[in-house]
């Protein structure tokens, strides 16, 4: 299926779960509610028409100022059909709070490390994660999330405006 066909199939099949959809940069993109994050992932993996067996990218964006939360973005890939899908969800969060969402590591084991990295850089809590330790940062980072906008700490030096 090409991107249009894939998007049409998914939006028809799961229309009660999808709140927004479109084609961004040639890739089919859907947005779902945080509560449906895990269930739609399971469907997309198991559905014989989509067969998303692999995660090519998984991360977050800090949109607290613009949209009022963190946006989780996952890019799925199907070996069988050679098609791609971007799935997004907005986790509402204000100030320094740490929003929670269900882990996808039970659906795709590869999501485990992606989630560990997202958790330590953005402070998103993945409920049910099998191994919620630090991945990249050293052991004594606690309660500090360096990829959040406006963060500064350690010997962080902001680039002066030219």
């Amino acid at each position, binding site marked *: 299926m090409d991107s249009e066909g894939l998007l049409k199939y998914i939006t028809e099949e799961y229309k009660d779960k999808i709140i927004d959809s479109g084609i961004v940069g040639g890739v089919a993109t859907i947005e779902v509610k945080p509560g449906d994050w895990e269930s739609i992932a399971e469907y997309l993996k198991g559905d014989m028409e989509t067969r998303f067996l692999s995660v090519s990218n998984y991360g977050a964006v800090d949109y607290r100022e613009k949209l009022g939360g963190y946006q989780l973005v996952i890019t799925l890939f199907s070996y069988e059909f050679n098609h791609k899908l971007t799935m997004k969800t907005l986790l509402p969060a204000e100030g320094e709070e740490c929003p929670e969402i269900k882990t996808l590591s039970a659906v795709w084991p590869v999501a485990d490390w992606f989630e560990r990295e997202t958790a330590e850089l953005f402070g998103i809590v993945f409920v049910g994660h099998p191994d919620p330790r630090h991945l*990249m*940062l*050293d052991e004594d980072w606690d309660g500090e999330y*360096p*990829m959040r906008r406006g*963060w500064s*700490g*350690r*010997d*962080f*030096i*902001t*680039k002066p405006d030219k």
Partner: protein
Amino acid sequence: MGIISKLPAYVERVPGGGIMTTSAEKFLNWSRASSIWYMLFGLACCAIEGLMATGASRYDFDRFGMIFRASPRQADLMIVAGTLTHKMAKRVKILYDQMAEPKYVISMGGCANRGGPFYYDSYSVLKGVDKIIPVDVYIPGCPPRPESVLEACLKLQDKIKKEKLADWAASTD
């Protein structure tokens, strides 16, 4: 340096050739400067240039008596080559502490000197290896040419040859 760089010539001129006239200090410094064994510490792209290209046959570190060791216990010199993150900084400190005195450090490349391209807007990079361990020679460049790594080693040899035995003894206490 005077006599120290001409040592082999003096050895030849003494009848029989087996006797060398020098001071203990100069002799010890000469032998230490001529066999600096360095510890591999490749952290990023600089490791390719500084440790592999310079150590291989074209630039040939061996002719200065420099041989790489994989253990800090056998090393005199640590060449910190590359981007030092906060996470790695602790390990660098531990390995430096494990080296036997006298020990030297060369900081290689912009990253190890002052954070390099990661100076601004980086949460993970330590801005200079000299924040955790003392550095003897700094090499600028991104990455430095193998020639400049060799030059740094010659500078370090000069430094070792000028050392006083009394200071050395004091530092090992």
